[in-house]
């Protein structure tokens, strides 16, 4: 916005190269960036765009096989190639960073007070005892309640959001000029995400440092950044003010990214549609602690008396933060975890069905998981993975028939049928999720429970998977239960929404009603916390 501000960090022709057994890989291909005093510059891009590696390269934090060339001048001082001793005077003092992983970025063996004090002692001198007053002040500044007591806590005694606040306290300790926030909220729940971003925003207003916000989330960019640099495959494709980028994007890639935000609506199947899967008074308990010689064992109620009714052709979206019980509910409905309640699939009461009684029904009740990397066996070919269910449910099929079904299923998920002779690691995240979907639909199911199927994917890939799921629903008359923490995906996919918190349903209703007029406080908080682009 204010272009008269002084440029404090000038990046010119910065390249980051990794030496790998397959030859050199250039992660950043000579980019230019200017960071001005006090601004918020968002560096946006999908995974592999080089946005994080640019910062790591500049700060001398690349992995052992990485090297950086080009120039990054901080107030006239060249950072690239700067000897470690001189670089250590800049990092942690003038330029500080917070990272994506609040759970692992702090040393588990030291108290948070000591860890925040370390850069203070390092850059300003003095003792840890002297730094303690400043640490307390910082903890209060970042909104850690009861700072006097919490200062001696260990990281494992704090939640993810609190740990990220501790990281922010560390970043502010020496009044930095530039704060680099590398996906600071990606690992956090939406409501916590909003709190952390608001905190960063207010601290920036108070202290006037420049913030470099690295993110893949355009919603966050729109709300917090003053300027945006869009990166793709190691290059900056477009730079501009936030308003310009969102309203008058120039580069095709930026346009594509903006269009990749999930959109569209699903129509309700109507009141007359028959009910296909129903759970009444669903409850799931987990034992906590205990064990053979455990002291005290308790019971944690993960799902608490939930009623849910899925109609044919319907998509119910289940929204909630981590620990809300949404995934457990999905598994309980498929009778995959021990649970109480009454369950009905079509005309069959499956409440008392054990493992073997459920087996013939499994063909019609399928599950797709979040993690497209962990849920496919690395030692089986794609063909083996997707036809495995056929051996159980349609053992009469000949080899040729199975192969034919595999080809059909792969075509349906828009993958090359030749993929069936390859292994999962040869595919990207989005392709793997298609393989996982193919594994489910090859059995011609009636109900598919989709547990965060798009959460691990980039936005542009997400859009494609959502389109695919919608098309499959239309052609096969599938019913979905779509579990996600991502409101924009839920909005695009489902015609009915269930909001869960602490194992209970807080609010439910038609998608439009929930999104336009949420009644419950919690739902409103969730909506406000989600920054839609």
């Amino acid at each position, binding site marked *: 916005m204010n272009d008269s501000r002084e440029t404090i960090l000038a990046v010119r022709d910065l390249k980051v190269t990794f030496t790998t057994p397959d030859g050199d890989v250039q992660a950043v291909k000579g980019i230019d960036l200017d960071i001005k005093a006090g601004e918020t510059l968002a560096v946006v891009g999908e995974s592999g765009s080089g946005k994080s590696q640019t910062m790591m390269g500049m700060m001398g934090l690349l992995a052992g096989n990485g090297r950086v060339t080009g120039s990054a001048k901080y107030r006239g001082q060249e950072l690239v190639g700067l000897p470690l001793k001189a670089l250590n005077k800049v990092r942690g003092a003038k330029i500080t960073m917070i990272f994506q992983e609040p759970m692992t*970025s702090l040393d588990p063996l*030291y108290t948070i007070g000591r860890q925040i004090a*370390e*850069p203070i002692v*390092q850059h300003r001198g003095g003792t840890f005892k002297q730094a303690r007053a400043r640490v307390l002040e910082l903890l209060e500044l970042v909104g850690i309640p009861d700072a006097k007591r919490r200062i001696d806590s260990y990281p494992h005694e704090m939640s993810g959001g609190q740990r990220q606040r501790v*990281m922010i306290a560390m970043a502010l300790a020496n009044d930095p000029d530039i704060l680099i926030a590398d996906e600071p909220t990606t690992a956090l729940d939406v409501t916590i995400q909003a709190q952390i971003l608001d905190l960063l925003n207010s601290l920036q207003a108070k202290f006037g440092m420049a913030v470099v916000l690295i993110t893949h989330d355009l919603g966050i960019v729109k709300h917090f950044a003053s300027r945006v640099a869009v990166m793709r495959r190691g290059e900056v494709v477009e730079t501009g003010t936030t308003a310009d980028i969102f309203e008058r994007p120039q580069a095709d890639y930026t346009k594509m990214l903006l269009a990749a935000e999930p959109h569209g609506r699903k129509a309700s199947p109507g009141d007359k549609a028959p009910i296909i899967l129903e759970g009444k008074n669903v409850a799931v308990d987990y034992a906590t602690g205990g064990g053979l010689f455990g002291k005290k064992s308790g019971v944690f109620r993960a799902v608490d008396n939930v009623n849910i009714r899925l109609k044919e052709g319907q998509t119910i979206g289940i929204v909630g933060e981590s620990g809300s019980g949404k995934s457990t509910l999905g598994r309980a409905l498929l009778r995959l975890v021990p649970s109480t309640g009454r369950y009905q699939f079509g005309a069959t009461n499956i409440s008392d069905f054990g493992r073997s009684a459920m087996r013939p029904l499994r063909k019609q009740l399928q599950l797709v998981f979040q993690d497209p990397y962990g849920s496919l066996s690395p030692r089986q070919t794609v063909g083996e993975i997707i036809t495995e269910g056929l051996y159980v449910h349609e053992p009469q099929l000949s080899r040729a028939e199975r192969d034919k079904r595999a080809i059909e299923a792969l075509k349906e998920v828009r993958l090359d049928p030749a993929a069936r002779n390859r292994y999962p690691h040869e595919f990207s995240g989005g392709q793997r999720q298609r393989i996982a979907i193919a594994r489910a639909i090859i059995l011609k199911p009636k109900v598919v429970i989709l547990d965060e199927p798009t959460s691990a994917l980039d936005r542009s890939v997400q859009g494609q998977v959502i389109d695919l799921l919608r098309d499959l629903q239309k052609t096969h008359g599938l019913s979905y239960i779509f579990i996600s923490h991502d409101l924009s995906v839920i909005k695009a996919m489902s015609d009915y929404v269930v909001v869960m918190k602490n194992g209970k349903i807080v609010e439910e209703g038609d998608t439009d009603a929930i999104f336009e007029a949420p009644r419950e406080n919690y739902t409103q908080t969730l909506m406000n916390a989600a920054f839609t682009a």
Partner: protein
Amino acid sequence: MISFVLRRLASAVPTLFIVVTISFFLMRFAPGGPFNLERPLPPQTMANLMATYHLDQPLWSQYVSYIGNAVTGDFGPSYVYKDNTVAELIGKGLPYSMELGFYALLLALVGGVLAGTIAALRQNSALDFLIMSVSTMGVTVPNFVVGPVLTLIFAITLSWLPAGSWGDGSLRFLILPMIALALPQLAVFARLTRGSMIEALHTDHIRTARAYGLPARTVVITHAMRAALLPVVSYLAPAAAALLTGSAVVETIFTIPGVGRYFVLGAINRDYTLVMGTVVLIAIFVIVFNLLVDILYGLLDPRVRHD
């Protein structure tokens, strides 16, 4: 903390009982007996001996009286070293074994951690390769080879150090047996440290420490080293128990009057009581060191603190 220690000590009682029971019966099921010598004894003498030591009683009654005596600290007479009780034999030998074992443990720990850390910091360099090759040799070459080779070089050829015996107990006499005893454990410590150090150096919090301008020395010593020592500390208990209770091979080669050889000699001679005494000794060492190590682990890692 105190209740943790008490609970652990209480659980040691059934453990010891089980160890004693199993070894007692295993020993008795092995063929032969303490008085089956190369030249068989006359039947009458044999019968007298068996009666003197109550070996003619039914097995269960021998077991009951052994347990009864052991609880009061009486581990019986040795059947082979006839003038000594088992307690006397162990009491005489243990100080030698423990002193030698303590130095060996110190050498193994300090040397191993140092070598492992250097190897990790210079990962894949020639130095790393050298340290790891030597430590592989340390594990694979048995100490009945290392001992005589050391003697040959340093005692016989160079005449720098005595070839054996406890002598006046001065360090000169201890250096060679100490090295022979420590080498395999030193190698294990080095490999453990190298592995955990490399892992620790790649964690996110090490990146944080570097991003905040902490000098390399602080990053390695205060942050990486402490995390890297955790698996090393876990291994400390079996290593300490093994070294402090003596080694039959090293004590025999260097003629050290420790307790290590009793375990082997006792087993060969079917000296039932001596073997049982040694088993109890080793079991107690293992239990005590596991407890000490758990306490130490708790001090190093706040996530498993015992309260």
